[in-house]
């Protein structure tokens, strides 16, 4: 047996390829991004004098606007998703029965089509003289203002795109509530609302939280909805980062923005996870 073998157990040794793969594929790019955020603006050499200039530049700029837009849009999206998805998730887990598979498929199949293609489809639907407004005009003679290229339509697009990411964890959460526990609460005198508030909601919370976090993290990084449906009427932070990395050829600035975004989202996620300890909810502690 080699020295390495003596130091590490068989488990560790077998995990080595995976660890190396993760280090190269996951940690290295992340570290590169962090490293780049400290080098002088518009340069491309990692090993030079590091400074916080890019961060100072960001704090002196209006980048916070993009952060606020991204966080705000994501928050609204998640809230709307929660309201829309809970009844559907409840139906999928408890009501639709054999039709659940069909409904699940209906929500899954669009995922096989590229997000951009689907969003362009909505452009054709909402555009002036398009499917919706054209039909309204032809059949009813009414010509409301187009909703395209507004912040409302961006939220619509985000809700549409991220719906499965809220729905499926939520469905899992709702289906985790045992029937007998629900019955027991009812039997102990709880009303339908009290059963929901006292038993169903807390017990399906793990799934709901995962849905919240998943759709929020994805929504904060959303870019296509604002570009395609919103006609860039709003510049989310991911678009700012994209501009820095492409047109502006200012990788360090883009990297610093990306690091800040990771920090902001990471902090929020950690805060939420602390606040709603999943283990505690499940009674594992």
């Amino acid at each position, binding site marked *: 047996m080699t020295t390495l073998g003596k130091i590490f157990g068989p488990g560790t040794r077998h995990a080595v390829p995976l660890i190396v793969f993760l280090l190269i594929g996951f940690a290295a790019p992340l570290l590169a991004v962090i490293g780049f955020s400290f080098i002088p603006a518009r340069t491309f050499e990692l090993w030079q004098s590091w400074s916080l200039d890019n961060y100072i530049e960001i704090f002196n700029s209006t980048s916070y606007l993009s952060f606020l837009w991204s966080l705000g849009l994501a928050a609204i999206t998640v809230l709307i998703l929660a309201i829309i998805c809970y009844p559907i998730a409840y139906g999928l887990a408890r009501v639709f029965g054999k039709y659940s598979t069909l409904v699940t498929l209906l929500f899954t199949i669009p995922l096989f089509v590229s997000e951009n293609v689907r969003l362009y489809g909505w452009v054709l639907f909402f555009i002036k003289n398009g499917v919706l407004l054209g039909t309204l005009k032809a059949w009813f003679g009414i010509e409301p203002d187009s909703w395209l290229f507004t912040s409302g339509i961006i939220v619509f697009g985000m809700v549409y795109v991220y719906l499965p990411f809220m729905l499926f964890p939520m469905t899992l959460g709702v289906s985790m509530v045992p029937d007998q526990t629900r019955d027991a609460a009812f039997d*102990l*005198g709880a*009303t339908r609302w009290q059963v929901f508030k006292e038993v169903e909601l807390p017990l399906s919370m793990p799934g709901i939280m995962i849905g919240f976090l998943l759709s929020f993290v994805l929504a904060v990084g959303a870019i296509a909805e604002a570009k395609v449906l919103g006609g860039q009427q709003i510049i989310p932070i991911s678009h700012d980062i994209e501009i820095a990395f492409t047109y502006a050829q200012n990788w360090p600035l883009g990297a610093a923005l990306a690091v800040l975004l990771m920090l902001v989202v990471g902090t929020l996620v950690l805060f939420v996870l602390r606040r709603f300890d999943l283990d505690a909810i499940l009674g594992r502690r």
Partner: protein
Amino acid sequence: MNGRSPILQLHNLTKTFGSFTAVKGISLDISEGEFFTIVGPSGSGKTTLLRMLTGMESATSGDILLRGARINDLPANKRPTCMVFQSLALFPHRTVGQNIEFSQKIKGVEPAKRKARALQLMAQLRLPENYYDKSVTKCSGGERQRVALARALAYDPDILFFDEPLSAIDYKLRKTLEKELKDIHRETGKTFIYITHSLEEAMVMSDRIGVMRSGQLVQVGSPQQIYSSPGTKFVSEFIGDVNVIGVRATATTGVHAAEFGVDFVTQPVPAGFGEGHLVVRPESLRFLGSRSEAQNCLEGRVYNEYVLGSRIQYQVRVGEHVFIVEKLRQQAFAGSLDDQVLIGWDAKDSILVTD
């Protein structure tokens, strides 16, 4: 229990699911303060019956009367009854105290008052006081049983239902809890309606037992009645190991067993009894020195023996028919396997049942 007014009356209660009839026209009166157990194998409709009684399932036809008032359409959360579930259905995200106080919190009872009630129940059920803030998921199986019972008692129900809550518990603990439950029944004086597939469990606790088969109550009686006078082969077999012989009535106290080509003396044959079964309990059978030692006798061969703690069971084969003979250890059979033996029993131990 006699002479008390009925708290729960069922009139021709029926439940169908599509073309399947789960409960067929059950009529039954349960007295105030009674411990009534419904026994039946799985699929006999006992759980469906219970769900109708609790209000979680609606009856297809028939009536459920609680102290004379029809409660068919009253939902579970409006009925003054409460159930202890098979899975216990404790709220895993709540502490022991919160579980017990649930129904009172729902009613809006003030915290101090409901905590006092919870602690009182915990004391009654021998749950340590410091368990009040313990997560229920950290409790042992027996403790969880007690929490579930306390939670149901805190609701202060007129009737407490039990859906096989002890089925998943190991034998020793189950035996302890059965007795505890019977004690609690005595202490509270409430009406308990219990369902189980174990007649043994029912015997320990119940005032009366109803045996269910295929959606119907086939026999209702005290444990003693069920034990000593099972009405049907099904009930008799449900009690445990019994010896069953197909017979035909030939006299007022005699039957003919075609299988052995002999007649047996029995208790008086019920009127109208034609073809049926003769049931003899294993402990009623004994080894004979000579044929004259018992009213009924068969000759067979000792095939095997099983030691069951204080008792020993013997498998005796008469032709192809297997008989079980049970003796106390002190009265063990002196011979060895494959000995030819005479087994016999008296008329008073000959129970006649129909199909």
